[in-house]
């Protein structure tokens, strides 16, 4: 199989990358009608598979699970998940031929083998759905011409997909139709109904393309989302301990600090996150982030280039073929880091203190978000996609670190994200070694100890203007506006 993206002419590549549109609520007026009475068969009963299935069934749709015979015979966890929740479970041979829609919710790594098994069993004119386009775009999987291929990707971990639905809401969701496989022109209607069934339409749906989704998703997850937070956690922790700060405090500041500072990001972008700092601290964070951006820019460019060229997926698939040797080695190393091994101390840290004592963390988030956004848009991904895959998702990932540190983050994210995170971390830690030598506890751990908070007017205006005029802030304020309209917490 050849990399699908690389087979397209440049003009088509750019057109595909430029797709991303926030859909209007009125476009979902038909609800789940397009899927009513149709047989939906889910493959894979992990967090996404199970929780999406629960939502779809609660929306009145017919959902069952196709599992491999071993999973059924050995009553594996996936079998237990499905049966204890009262779903019909069967083998591929039993269920796939009856399916109107097959939902492939297995890990990326299994896509090729799953799709190769399933495709011959699917009935004429049925629909195959993905939640990530890696298999189509990077692995170049060719789907039978009579089948419709769509993507519905809730932009949250499976547990949240369910929790938000139960609350009467949903999570932001990306949908796409694979243009090469839309023989009956019903792909969009099916994708919209699927998004309604999981509750996504209440939180906002983005209409994208398989290509835009894959290229932006890979870039976001390996750089700012997982890579930067992982690298930042390790570097900041070791620095604080080196500076004589209590390890328990340092551990807590980092574990919960990402979540706290990115919460400000979620509400009001990078600007609001930095506005939470005192004026001298804001200027300090700004200067640090500019320095970080200069150091890390080549790395971000390399990640984006490797993603675009297919080099990234090629090396990752090589590691897959090598039984994940690199990934597993790195995973073991992460578990042995000082940050991971030091439990959060039993100390109270106020919300504001996370900002005041975490200036470097704020600077790292700012640098990572802006760099990822700049690199993606420079590569032809449009601003909307770049915003969602950088700034928007950072709080979601930060939340997983708050739960159980890096272990939880790496366990929750996809295997492609974890592999990308590995590559990033591997390169970024040495890259920042010199920079970290100049760091003291005033910007991580203790906060600036100044006699007064005076700053130079001209410099403050300069910094504020630079923050507010960054392009991620422009698109962010528009998209957050849409979200707020939907989520109108009046």
């Amino acid at each position, binding site marked *: 199989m050849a990399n699908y993206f690389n087979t397209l002419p440049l003009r088509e590549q750019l057109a595909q990358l430029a797709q991303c549109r926030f859909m209007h609520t009125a476009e979902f007026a038909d609800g789940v009608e397009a899927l009513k009475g149709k047989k939906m068969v889910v493959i894979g009963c992990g967090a996404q598979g199970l929780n999406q299935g629960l939502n779809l069934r609660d929306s009145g749709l017919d959902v069952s699970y196709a599992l491999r015979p071993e999973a059924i015979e050995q009553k594996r966890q996936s079998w237990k998940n499905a049966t204890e929740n*009262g779903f019909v479970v069967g083998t591929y041979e039993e269920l796939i031929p009856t399916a109107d829609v097959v939902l492939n919710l297995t890990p990326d790594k299994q896509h090729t083998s799953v799709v190769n098994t399933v495709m011959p069993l699917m009935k004429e004119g049925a629909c195959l759905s993905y939640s990530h386009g890696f298999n189509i775009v990077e692995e170049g999987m060719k789907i039978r011409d009579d089948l419709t291929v769509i993507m519905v990707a809730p932009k949250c971990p499976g547990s949240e997909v369910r929790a938000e639905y*139960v609350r*009467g809401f949903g999570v932001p969701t990306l949908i796409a139709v694979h243009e090469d496989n839309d023989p009956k022109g019903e792909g969009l209607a099916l994708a919209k109904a699927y998004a309604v069934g999981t509750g996504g339409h209440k939180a906002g749906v983005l209409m994208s393309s398989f290509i835009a989704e894959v290229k932006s998703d890979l870039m976001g997850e390996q750089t700012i989302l997982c890579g930067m937070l992982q690298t930042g956690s390790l570097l900041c922790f070791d620095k604080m301990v080196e500076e004589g700060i209590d390890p328990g405090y340092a551990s807590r500041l980092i574990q919960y600090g990402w979540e706290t500072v990115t919460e400000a990001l979620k509400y009001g972008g990078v600007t609001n996150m930095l506005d939470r700092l005192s004026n001298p601290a804001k200027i300090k964070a700004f200067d640090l982030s500019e320095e970080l951006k200069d150091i890390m820019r080549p790395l971000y460019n390399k990640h984006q280039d490797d993603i675009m060229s297919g080099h990234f997926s090629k090396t990752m698939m090589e590691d897959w073929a090598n039984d994940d040797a690199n990934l597993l080695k790195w995973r073991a190393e992460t578990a042995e880091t000082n940050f991971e091994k030091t439990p959060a101390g039993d100390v109270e840290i106020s919300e504001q203190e996370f900002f005041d004592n975490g200036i470097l963390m704020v600077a790292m988030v700012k640098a990572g978000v802006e760099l990822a956004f700049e690199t993606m848009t420079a590569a032809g991904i449009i601003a909307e996609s770049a915003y969602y895959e950088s700034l928007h998702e950072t709080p979601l990932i930060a939340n997983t670190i708050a739960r159980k540190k890096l272990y939880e983050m790496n366990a929750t994210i996809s295997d492609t994200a974890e592999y990308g995170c590995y590559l990033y971390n591997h390169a970024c830690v040495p890259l920042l070694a010199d920079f970290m030598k100049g760091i003291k506890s005033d910007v991580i751990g203790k906060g600036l100890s100044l006699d007064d908070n005076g700053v130079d007017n001209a410099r403050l205006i300069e910094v504020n203007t630079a923050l507010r005029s960054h392009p991620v802030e422009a698109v962010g304020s528009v998209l957050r506006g849409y979200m707020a309209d939907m*989520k109108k917490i009046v």
Partner: protein
Amino acid sequence: MDPLPLLDNIHLSKATVSFDDRFTLSEIDWTITSEQHWVITGPNGAGKSALAAALAGMGDIQSGSIQGLPNNVEIVSFEAQAELIAQELKKDDADIMDVISLGTPVSEMIFDHCQDTELAQSLVEKFGLGKLLDRAFRKLSTGETRKVMLIRALANKPDLLILDEPFDGLDVDTLAMLQAHLASIIDTVPMAMVLNRFDEMPDFITHVAYLDKERGDKQSGDKGRLKLTVDRQDDAAFNELYQLLHLKTTDLSVPEADPTNKLPTLDPSQPLVKLTQATIQYGDTVIVDKLDWTIERGQHWQLSGPNGSGKTCVLSLITGDHPQCYTNDIFVFGFQRGNGESIWQIKQFIGYVSTNLQWEYRVSTSCKNVIISGFYDSIGMYTKPTDSQKKIADQWLEILGMQDRADQPFNKLSYGDQRLLLIARAMVKHPPLLILDEPCLGLDDINRQLVLALIEKICQGSETTVLYVNHHAEDQITGIEHYLGLEKNN
């Protein structure tokens, strides 16, 4: 000023006191110490005046004991006033001589009775009774006889002063004068006063006793019980008591359902809920075993059973929150489950309150929005509410006595107030079925009373069928006649 008399504590121990077979105070446990000043309060018919009278030594003690009552007790009450007037009228009747009796003059009523004539004289002037001293007592207006009674009681320098609604019917100036006088003697005499209105409560009051009535059978008549005592210093408890009294005494009834958005009509010939051989099972563990249960409209049910007997599981089969509702034979609100209905079509007919819901209701939203979210069965608000919904929410806040908290964040409220709001949320749409899953769980006495008062109000004023789950025998709700007991299966 005289020093405080060395008074024993007054101690009521499981005192059951009956009054003319009409009313019984039931098992009162109460201690009054000499430095305390009490207000006795509660809804109409709760036995406030009876308790005041019992302190004055009236009523027949059926069981238990009242110890430490001083000899010199003065009581001013409508009953005592009526009795005094009756005595006067009797004198008139008893006059067999054919002369017109003038009755006892006011001066004699006052000065013959009291210990401190000087004080009596000054009070006569303060109360403006100087001109009436020669008038016959029985010729006075009700307000004037009340003043005479007050002067007699105060000038008699009692060791315990009991005032039953002392401020009723007094003009503003007299009221202020009386309050000032009472404030000047707080170090010399303990006081207990019956008050229906909190805003009349003098500042020197140290404690509040709250009574409520329990409906008895025809022979025994109603019973009054001392439900709570609150220390004035405890601001939170004091405010809750205020709210409780408001709820118990307000004439406001449960607000109407939203006229602009009516629930679909249910077929009156069908039961609301019918479970047939309902079974919940995890692996080999059976939680609920072949349960048949039909809830007809208007049949209020109490569901009970030990922890782990599956009460909440059974409820979640009805609400659609249990995944195994799709593998059971469940008929709810016209839907045979598992035929393409969505859970929102089911939930619209149900109001639901539980401790779990309270734990899950962690979004930061205003109190008013919490109530409105009941229209959408959502946790938090994701839709702009209509004017009509906002108006109904305001009416509910008024019933709860929480108008001033409409815009406060829900998560900043006390646990008990949160529970009240969630009950209002459940009822706001007038659901055909209201499920109260241990609504008093985790609440202290006063909040328990508050919640029960609210539920009682709801049961009085609507056509909602109530399903009440509880294992506290004392938290009975009047009107429930059907019981289902679950056994623990393992």
